[in-house]
């Protein structure tokens, strides 16, 4: 499995964790939503950690840091994390409209972010002369 395949698959896994959470919110079942929120948030944070702790630093060895694409991806991670936190608060406050609105915002923000990674960044990673096997292994070991 390549880095691109693994990470793309992980994006879909996160989506799959989000979908039932949204369904619970839509049905007004806050107990269930709170329950589903935990593994969802964990999966998201783990995905960010795999990138920010393993993949990105390795890539930066080749393309340098600074205000390049990796910087943009990290900024967007911060934006997404902030929505997830607000979403958690809205669920705790049982504010259905707010939670669903944040959910929609989360979804579209995350999806356009994923597109950039899948269309561009992961392709870039595949083309750089790095030890991809080792990176993949290290990423799999990351815990949330």
């Amino acid at each position, binding site marked *: 499995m390549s880095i691109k395949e693994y990470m793309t698959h992980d994006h879909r896994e996160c989506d799959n964790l989000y979908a039932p959470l949204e369904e619970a919110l*839509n049905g007004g079942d806050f107990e269930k939503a709170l329950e589903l929120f935990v593994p969802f948030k964990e999966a998201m944070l783990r995905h960010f950690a795999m990138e920010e702790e393993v993949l990105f630093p390795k890539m930066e060895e080749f393309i340098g840091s600074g*205000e*390049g694409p990796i910087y943009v991806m990290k900024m967007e991670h911060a934006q997404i994390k902030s929505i997830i936190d607000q979403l958690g608060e809205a669920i705790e406050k049982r504010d259905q409209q*707010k939670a*669903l*609105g944040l959910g929609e915002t989360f979804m579209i*923000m995350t999806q356009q972010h994923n*597109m950039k990674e899948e269309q*561009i960044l992961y392709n*870039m990673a595949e083309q750089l002369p790095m030890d991809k096997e080792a990176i993949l292994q290290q990423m799999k070991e990351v815990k949330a």
Partner: protein
Amino acid sequence: MFTGLSLDQAPPFEAPLRFFLSAPLFGAAAGVFILFFASAGYLLSPDTLVIVHLYTLGFLGMVMIGALQQMLPVLAGVKLPRPLPLSAIIHTALIIGTISLCLSFYGKEIFAAIAAIALSVALIGFGTVTLYELFRADFSSATVSAMRLALVSLLITAIAGVILLLILNGYLETDFQKTLLIHAAAGLFGWISILIAGVSYQVIPMFYVTSEFPAPLKKSFHLVLFLSLIVISIPSMVFNNHLALLAPLFLVAFFALASFKLFQNRKRKITEPTIEFWYLSIGSILAALLDGIWYALYPTDGALWIAGVLIIYGFVVSLIIGMLYKIVPFLSWFHLSSKGVFDIPTMKEMIDQKWAKIHLYLHIVTLILLLTSFYYEPLFKPAGLAMIIENLILLKNLLGAAKIYFAKKDEKGFEFPPPNI
């Protein structure tokens, strides 16, 4: 290498926004024209041509060009040069071109000349610049390859359109019907349908959490559709038969069914207005195919009218409205969020879902009135009125989202436009 994704990879909101906000104005103009000036019941009358082009150029062209500017960096890592001046030039040329074209249908040669020049600048200019950038993209994908073919089709549509203008004004003697067929086929099934397919490959699985389109379909659909256009253009030169359009129509309907299947099995169960607009779009293209088959058996002008309305107003306009309701509030949110603003309303607070729903119902009413007005003329004026109201609601909804952006921007005093433009 890898220059595509920079810090400012998204063009400033103002660049695509001017296109998005112009669309409902042209839609409302088409409604005003129907209500006060146009008469129904003719296929190729100047009145019909005006209505069609207010929508295809003024509404659809606007949104698609605006959205492409926005999507290219995300989907292809391609950034158009100098987004603000570029969008200002294309936008202005498209407005002037569309209005002049409509006036030219009533026999004013000077307007035909202005339209030919302005639309060439807008469409051929935009198409060429974007194609050039797309061929320089670092990476390709099914979506990028579909976008290229869509843009090639845009160029063919625009060139055929200019040739038609020259024929109408007596400068060329080329066969009008055959050129018209190529113009319409390349426009509806090339530029519009191929772009819809290419964007759908990405957007449907991601936004609605569906499975992917089957890999062979993603790989070949846009190519097959484009080839079908080339193939039908050749015999049509000889036979001059618009039944040939059934081939691409069949393909697009097939693609719509494939999308429907994805939607049906989506993991994100929530139903929202954008999905309903999408379903209306799918239903319309399937109905258009049935109508096309009916036309093959019993050719009447009425069947052609219905096909036109179903394809343009049912299939394309519905889908575009649904996308606008996702894109505009998101961009408003995204640009504020990127500037570090945190107290931003959520996407659902930016556009009241209730008003989006009201728009959906009015859009269906307009569609039905338009479809039936060919057979029962008294329904044509009400169709115009419904069209005006529908577009005013769209404008209100989009402005609501845009206003939040501008209010926050003023409040926080951003430096804008960004210094590097």
